[in-house]
């Protein structure tokens, strides 16, 4: 793989990260508001607690968060903090650091997202491949319309329906949360079993919605591939149908599917954020929701930065491993 492509691609990644950090810094300051004062006033209005020490508190907080220095200085410090993944303290849960809050929520989201995304990608791709193959069973063709209809609606909408059916009506699965209230996260078999049990409905709402999209994409690619000369040639050579299907058609149709995975990653993450809100799942999405509701700006900023960086990283990784899938890619003028 040419080095200049890798350098370009990595440079792009850092550009994304820098842009995300800069947007995160400047957008909130556009209005020229004092974030600490606003949070304090909001908190006071919400809680109705003592107002007397407010101005001094604002002063102390502004000193603490370094909000009294010139803007460029603040920006510089901020970029330094971001590069060390230091997101300051939470405003509403003061002694807690934002990075700790995120660290606690991140494993939940990572596990939920990687398993559901991989699972729906693999199963959806296979389904799509079989749908385009003339010899597959009939009923597969009837699967497409319902899968496509599901694919058109947002994840969390299906989540709401699933909660009603499976948790409220039939009481098969828990109503909300990532584990039974009262237990504490630990690496014990009983806790892991409990967590798995709680994650089935959120996972199902992501998988069922995503399947259709992958199936549709793969089906279209398979139809194109099956019309190519090398497939006709393989057929004329007398190769077995199975061989043509597995070694000729699927393998060649697979690359656009991998590209698509990199392209829709952002959408999957945004969708999953809302699924967590609907299920009160203890991951990043729900933490973000709580941050928004309590006006905890640093939490929101930190989570958004982390999400953008992780999406950038995965996209970078997918882009760099393409040649392993497909030797046709040369990256000469990428």
């Amino acid at each position, binding site marked *: 793989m040419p080095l200049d492509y890798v350098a370009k691609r990595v440079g*792009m990644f850092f*550009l*994304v990260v820098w*842009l*995300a950090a800069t*947007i*995160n810094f400047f*957008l*909130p300051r*556009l*209005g020229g*508001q004092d974030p600490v004062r*606003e949070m304090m006033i909001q908190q006071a209005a919400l809680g109705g607690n003592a107002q007397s020490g407010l101005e001094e508190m604002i002063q102390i907080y502004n000193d603490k968060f370094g909000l009294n220095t010139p803007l460029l200085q603040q920006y510089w410090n901020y970029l330094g903090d971001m590069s060390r993944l230091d997101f300051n303290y939470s405003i509403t849960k003061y002694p807690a650091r934002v990075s700790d809050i995120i660290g606690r929520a991140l494993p939940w989201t990572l596990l939920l997202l990687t398993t559901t995304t991989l699972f729906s990608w693999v199963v959806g791709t296979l389904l799509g491949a079989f749908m385009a193959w003339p010899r597959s069973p009939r009923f597969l063709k009837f699967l497409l319309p319902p899968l*496509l*209809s599901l*694919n*058109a*609606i*947002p994840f*969390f*909408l299906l989540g*709401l*329906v699933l*909660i*009603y059916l499976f*948790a*409220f009506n039939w009481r098969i699965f828990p*109503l*909300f949360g990532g584990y039974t209230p009262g237990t504490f996260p630990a690496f014990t078999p009983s806790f892991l079993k409990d967590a798995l049990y709680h994650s089935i409905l959120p996972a199902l709402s992501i998988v069922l919605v995503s399947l259709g999209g992958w199936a*549709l994409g793969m089906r*279209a690619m398979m*139809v194109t591939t099956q019309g190519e000369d090398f497939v006709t040639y393989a057929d004329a050579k007398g190769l077995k149908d199975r061989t043509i299907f597995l070694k000729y058609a699927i393998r060649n149709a697979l690359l656009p599917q991998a590209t698509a995975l990199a*392209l829709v990653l*952002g*959408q999957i*993450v*945004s969708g999953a*954020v*809302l699924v967590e*809100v*609907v299920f009160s799942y203890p991951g990043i999405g729900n933490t*973000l*929701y709580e941050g*928004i*509701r309590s*006006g905890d*700006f640093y939490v*929101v*900023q930190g989570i*958004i930065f982390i*999400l*953008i960086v992780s*999406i*950038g990283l995965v*996209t970078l990784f997918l882009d760099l491993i393409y040649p392993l899938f497909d030797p046709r890619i040369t990256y000469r003028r990428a």
Partner: protein
Amino acid sequence: MSSAAQVLTAPEGSRAEGTRRASARAGLGYLRRNPSLGIGLMLLLTLVLFVVIGHLTVDTVQFRPLSTRPLQPPSWELPFGSDKQGRNLYAVMVEGTPLTLRIGLLAGVIGVTLGATLAFIAGYYGGWADNVIRIVVDVGLTIPGLLILIIIAMRVRGGLTVDQMALVVGLLAWLYPARTIRSQVLTLKQRGYVQVARLSGMSNPEVIAKELLPNLLPYLGASLVGSVSAAILASIGLEVLGLGPFEAPTLGMTIYWVNYNAAIINGWWWWWVPPIIVIAILFIGLFLVAVGLDEIANPRVRNRV
């Protein structure tokens, strides 16, 4: 005098009527060959019909809280029941469905207009403008729009209005159209008739307006439907997170209140079933129309989907 004029114009009028009927028949015939477009349009029409009938049968002011007794299940007077704050949910749906559509349409139009303008500049003129636009789009598309929208929406104090919401969503809706339309412009630019137009001395803006734009219209239409759908998705996402227009009864805000009041695990099914059905019809309808328009814009994909 007037009767003479009528006589004179009558055959003209009936001929126009005839061609109109013929073209209508041809349109219906096309819809039969392109079922996704037909079914999609039908779904969207159902929603329009629902809103129109709703406006005739209910006082839409009742979308406000405290209009009726709270938490009534559906009955004759309240076909969709009422929510915990005493909104008449039928009025909420009738008032909210067009509001959500409005957000989507406004944001979608902003997105496609901006995106197409940049795409024509980048694709047709090339050069440094192309480089800048391409890099901005590539970087921008890596960042999930919803996350940026959250930051913007959080800073707007006192909550967004419906139109502000559309504007905010539209701010990021141009990225994807810009990329796809640019690649279309690139291929179209190489076509013979465009080359001929340029060689015959047409100015660049003229070539864009007279040669490129008309040929890209179906494609722009498909792109618009996609953008509207994406904008509605983004707006509902913001609303469910509690960053929407609190005063407005949009579909997303209704879902927000459902979630906020835990309506599902309290068994108030009439509160969440209608918005979910309307949102589902809306997205499936838009998706089918987009697929159908894609078939018009891109005949090679015919019979594939």
